[in-house]
């Protein structure tokens, strides 16, 4: 039997702030299968950002196991983490995080640059990714010449171009008006139907309710894991716990 794409067991992440230990993640366990669309919800301070950083291999856990696509992230050197991010993770950020001086297609090419894909192939794949998110006619535009929704599409194209195992989206609609946000969510839905694994980190229950599955965090622990609509409906994690 094939191992799940993501295995998280008893994951801890502690910070020492001003002599006090903050348990941002305090023993989190779950698995995510290939092709799932999972929301990670929680209020600010619940640990969801910390979890996202760990899942995205931007950070390493204080204790516990994180296996991504069969390889243990524990003990990897910085360079190996960089390579792992490049291969396995496609990031979509709330603030888009596009390079302002680069054109759309140059932005999308970036992960392939760091993978050593030859220029011509790189360009072709970046253009294909932009076409896939409906930006065929915006290739050479710079970010400041694009609308918010278009910028986020460029960011999604950039996340997809390297064919990673996971699409890791952090509040992808947070900086968009509701109509544009809806478009982006529909795009995620399409990508999910095409078989992509998507993890969507959000504080909005409304958004989590749209996902087939949601994991709710509170105070660094999992307080709910199930169908999106149900988990999203849990109001105030602490109340449920008590």
């Amino acid at each position: 039997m094939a191992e799940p794409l993501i295995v998280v067991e008893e994951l801890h992440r502690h910070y020492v702030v001003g002599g006090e230990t903050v348990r941002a993640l305090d023993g989190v366990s779950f698995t995510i299968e290939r092709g799932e669309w999972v929301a990670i919800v929680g209020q600010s301070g619940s640990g969801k950002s910390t979890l996202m950083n760990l899942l995205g291999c931007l950070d390493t856990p204080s204790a516990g196991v994180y296996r991504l696509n069969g390889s243990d992230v524990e003990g990897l050197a910085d360079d190996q983490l960089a390579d792992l991010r490049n291969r396995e993770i496609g990031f979509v950020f709330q603030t888009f995080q596009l390079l302002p001086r680069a054109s759309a297609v140059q932005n999308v090419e970036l992960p392939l640059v760091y993978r050593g894909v030859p220029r011509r192939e790189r360009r072709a794949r970046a253009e294909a990714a932009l076409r896939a998110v409906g930006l065929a006619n915006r290739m050479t535009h710079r970010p400041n010449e694009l609308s918010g929704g278009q910028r986020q599409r460029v960011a999604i194209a950039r996340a997809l171009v390297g064919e990673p195992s996971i699409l890791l989206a952090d509040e992808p609609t947070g900086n968009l008006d509701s109509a544009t946000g809806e478009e982006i969510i529909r795009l995620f839905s399409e990508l999910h139907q095409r078989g992509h694994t998507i993890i969507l980190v959000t504080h909005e229950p409304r958004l989590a309710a749209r996902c087939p599955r949601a994991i709710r965090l509170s105070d660094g622990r999992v307080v709910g894991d199930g169908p999106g609509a149900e988990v999203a409906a849990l109001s105030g994690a602490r109340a449920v716990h008590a």
Partner: protein
Amino acid sequence: MNRVTRAFVRAGAELAEAVRIALGSLVGARLRSFLTTLGIVIGVMTVIAIVAIIQGLNRSFEGQIANLGANTLYVSKFAWLAQGRGEWWEMRNRKDLGKRELAAVEREVTLATAVAPQAGTRGTVTRLDKELSGVQLIGTNARYLDTGAGSVQAGRFLTDTDVDLERAVAVLGHAVAERLFPGASPESVLGQRVTLEGHPFTVVGVMAKRGQMLGMDMDSNVTMPFTTFLRDLGSKRSLNLAVASAPEDLSALEDQIVGVLRRVRHVPPDKKDDFAINRQEQFLRIYRQLTGALYGVAIGVGLITLVVGGIGIMNIMLVSVTERTREIGVRRALGARRRTILLQFLIESSVVAALGGAVGTTLGLGVAQLVALLTPLAAAVTPSAVALGLGFSAGVGLLFGSWPAWRAARLDPVEALRYE
């Protein structure tokens, strides 16, 4: 094999990307880039200009010094390069060199291809109402020209017969002929009478123009048989001997001369030579020492300016790293390794510095040409100076860019992405 090619493609792509980013951010902040590199520009400009001028001086010096025969030794009471007053007084009290020494060298120094005595003084030359003072009067023999002392333009040089018979004949230096006989052709001067320090002489030849050597006008002289010189202008003068040989024999020639002269002058074995053997090379050596010191100062000044420029670059790179913290975070999230970020910023700082170096080199060469045009100083441009300017400035960029680049590479991706 496949992994290796992929690594190469990756390195190449990263490098190309780094250069593209570097140029992009330069163009993006033109004024800032310009101000950043100003220090480098000025430093490189200074060094290049000074180096070009020194090299120009060297060339013109070496050209002038070639007036001294390269294959000729100059035997004299005095060493050209005396060390201090004490030595000078010691040399002054030495026995004069005279006909006896000349005869011995002519007879016994077998490696010599030419031996020419030289007696010299400054004197006045007159012709009708024209009078030239401070003219170098030289007494020598027929071999003089074979010791690298120029050539005859018109008429003839001195002969052995002139010397033997103590004839009152003279060969005029180019400038002397021109000034005593304005407008006359050198040929028409032949056979004319001139008066040297009150003694009548007949002009038998005119020398070709030689130019200057070390500020000395090599054309303002009159040459006559040394026998006549000693008779008419003073017998108490010490002779100098110019002795020429084949270039490869020069050291052996010196040994022979030393042996002969010590014997003739009865120098006891435990005493030092009471004469000096000079050669052109000594001048070059001392000159190179002098300009070497000048080089040192110029390069010191340039280095200080480059350091100041480097600090400017470091400063602006630190600002740039801070400004682009989020960009660094994004790049790291997308798979850039630390050393990729390091490389990106290193390339940026060296490109800025090298561009500054290129501008500085161009300006420096311009300044050198301007100096050469407006002053008697010469300027020479050598590829090595240009390479030096560019190389140094790129090096400064690398050196002073390394700390900011290291800071960029050390950034934590999580923190960098969150940076506002």
